[in-house]
């Protein structure tokens, strides 16, 4: 059932130790900063985090990593100029990394939401990121077998929600939000505005409310 927590801390209160948590955003666009801060505050640990990157600077996901709360990162691009907390943990052998080409990351998340048990893709074929994976030739091309990435929780950011949990996003802040919402058992969304049901044109809804569990308005 859809609920509307009072604040981000209430929204994330149910996240358990050992959960797999998808976090939306690409760069700062679409990052649910307030929900990530609340995840930090709530104390959940031994997390597997799915995000395109592995934290930047001294905030958000980077801080979760610094505090040792993340046991594994599944991402496409962990190395950035300011990803020093991930770098340190990685070199200390204190965090596991599953590196996934960005398109495989997106498609694997999509597959989880769509009930696909696995798929073949040319991306990564013949590279070290396909080592140990099943391959076959399909349509005349070498392809690699990839499996869905499911999650217990998704933390995403949208622009607006209505009373049914339908979501619209803004520009390139849309990125991973819609597919993570579908892939997670429990999807928590921070929005700038909650409008009455019927306040969003049915033609422009990007994420239908069926994929959404909790909506919290963030100032």
């Amino acid at each position, binding site marked *: 059932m859809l609920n509307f927590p009072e604040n981000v801390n209430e929204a994330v209160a149910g996240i358990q130790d050992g959960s797999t948590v998808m976090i939306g955003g690409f760069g700062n666009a679409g990052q649910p900063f307030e929900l990530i801060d609340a995840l930090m505050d709530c104390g959940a640990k031994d997390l597997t985090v799915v995000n395109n990157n592995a934290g930047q600077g001294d905030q958000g996901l980077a801080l979760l990593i610094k505090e040792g709360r993340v046991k594994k990162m599944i991402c496409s691009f962990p190395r950035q100029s300011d990803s020093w907390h991930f770098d340190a943990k990685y070199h200390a052998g204190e965090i596991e990394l599953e590196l996934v080409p960005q398109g495989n990351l997106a498609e694997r998340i999509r597959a989880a939401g*769509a*009930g696909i048990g696995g798929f073949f893709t040319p991306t990564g074929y013949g590279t070290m990121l396909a080592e140990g994976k099943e391959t076959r030739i399909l349509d005349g091309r070498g392809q690699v077998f990839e499996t869905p990435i499911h999650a217990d929780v998704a933390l995403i950011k949208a622009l607006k929600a209505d*009373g*049914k949990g*339908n979501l619209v996003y803004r520009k390139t802040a849309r990125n991973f939000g819609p597919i993570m919402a579908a892939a997670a058992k429990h999807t928590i969304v921070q929005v700038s505005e909650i409008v009455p049901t019927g306040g969003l044109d*049915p*033609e422009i*809804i990007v994420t239908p*409310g069926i994929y959404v569990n909790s909506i919290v308005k963030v100032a």
Partner: protein
Amino acid sequence: MSVQSNDQAALAAGIRKSDKPLGRNDLARLVARDIKPGSFVNLGIGQPTLVSNYLQPEQNITLHTENGMLGMGPEATGDQIDGDLINAGKIPVTELPGASYFHHADSFAIMRGGHLDICVLGAFQVSATGDLANWHTGAPDAIPAVGGAMDLATGAKDVFVMMTLLTREGVSKLVETCTYPLTGIGCVTRVYTDKAVFLTGPGGVQVRETFGCTLEELQDMVPVPLTAAPAVGG
């Protein structure tokens, strides 16, 4: 087991009873009542569509139609009829506040990804372990047509079947093993019939309520072992 002892067991289990078989509309009302508030539901073509007539606004049920919509409203009438707004049975329908549209792959991703709480389907046969046969009679000259039946059967969290318990020839459609071609394996969780409501699953077939017959009379009609469901059904 005597009729009496069986009925005592049913009574002890709190099994509900009514004194006559249920008509299609009464059955639809019963299914509607059993759908948990806030559910996302797909109603199959035919008899299951009747269920929508009995859903109450306070249940806050959202109907899905596989041709690309959530938040489907009642059948359209008069000026409401819009050729671009139809359900999976190709009947003009209406749109409720909070509806959304999406393309066919996104629509079936909702079904196949396990996001629907319940789908309600008709059936030719249901097996004791919840196998469903509802798409093909298997007749050699029949043109096969499956539509979205296999996706619904396989994808929804709960699959409710609505059917008459017996064929016109008096043969049980609840069977040990389906003889018609299968739609899905072990997918049906409840069977609503004119004579009883059955819960199917790994634990065998349980009877939740009977309509115009005793559990023993029911057992005589059905070739699979029946037990009374525990009191907390619903």
